[in-house]
């Protein structure tokens, strides 16, 4: 049943997150990184595969003995739904850990524009300290008003911040370079998760 595949427990959520963040990860590493029992991990991965949310490649070995390389499947009908759960949960975690960001994220969400706003760097890695800057990346067609709105929102932020701005086309063009790969790996989407979905889905 579909209900069995929903990440309704913390352990399932950790497994799903681990697969989402690590392409072609094997079962042993899923168990290790998600800190779950082998039985639960294997069972949940099988369920995710059944609904096409996880895709599995068989690597090496024989027909009976092989290593399963598990990845999040961005092309399945249910992927967008699971992707939204993962990204919204990450945003919630970020706000929980760094309460100072809460009002700024709320105001960014209120901007009436189709832009995507990401936090990357130490805050997105959940490794920020008092000295850390908040690194923002804005993807989309941004006009003067929206740029002004973003800058004004952060005027009361008690720590330093930086803002990078790119159109979606530019972002996709540079997707393979080191900065963009870092952003893709360690990011929290604070506005417009739905629009960002198309980017990893295209890779």
């Amino acid at each position: 049943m579909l209900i069995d595949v929903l990440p309704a427990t913390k352990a399932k959520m950790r497994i799903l997150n681990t697969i989402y963040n690590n392409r072609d990860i094997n079962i042993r590493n899923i168990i290790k990184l998600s800190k779950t029992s082998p039985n639960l991990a294997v069972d949940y991965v099988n369920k995710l595969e059944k609904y096409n949310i996880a895709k599995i490649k068989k690597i090496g070995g024989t027909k009976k003995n092989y290593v399963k390389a598990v990845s999040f499947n961005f092309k399945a009908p249910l992927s967008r739904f699971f992707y939204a759960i993962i990204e919204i949960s990450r945003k919630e975690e970020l706000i929980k850990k760094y309460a100072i960001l809460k009002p700024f994220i709320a105001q960014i969400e209120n901007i009436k524009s189709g832009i995507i706003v990401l936090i990357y760097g130490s805050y997105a890695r959940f490794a920020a300290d008092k000295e850390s800057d908040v690194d923002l990346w804005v993807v989309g067609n941004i006009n003067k008003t929206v740029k002004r709105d973003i800058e004004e929102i952060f005027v009361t932020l008690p720590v330093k911040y930086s803002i990078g701005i790119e159109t979606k086309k530019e972002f996709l063009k540079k997707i393979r370079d080191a900065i963009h790969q870092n952003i893709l790996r360690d990011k929290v989407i604070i506005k417009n998760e739905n629009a960002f979905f198309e980017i990893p889905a295209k890779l």
Partner: protein
Amino acid sequence: MLEKIKIRLPKKEKSIEKFFSSCEKRKKFVQDIENYNEKRLKKSKHDLKAAISEFKEENWDWTVVKAYYAIHHAGNALLSKEKLLFSKDHSCLVIALAHYNLIDKQLFQKLSKIAEQFHNTLSIDIAFELRKIGQYDVERWEDITKEDAEKVLEIAKEFIAYVEGRIC
């Protein structure tokens, strides 16, 4: 300059209530539109950023004017969010925030000080008190120091951060 100011807005609870009643009688509080607090906060931060720019340009008087407006809009954002009211009168606004316990004593003192001082010096409520133009602003604006501007800006930042923490 700011240091020499004696606060004339009431401090004691009874006097605050009396002042608040007087504001009510004079119809200084108006019903706001739902969710308008977001727009008020946005305007407040727009004014704060402008105040920071004026400070960088060493325009101490304009720093104070814009920071004052930023405080006023932030105060109304808070009053609107919590009580769906707003006030164009700065003194009544500050009193309402105290009356409804939306700010603590320390913040109330800081806001009162600014209201007392710059209301007169810069004729900020120009539309409502035209008689003050010429009487104060053309003579006293040059008395505003960098330190005054710095302090008002600091209070504006502190107050707006407090308001957005409460309403967002």
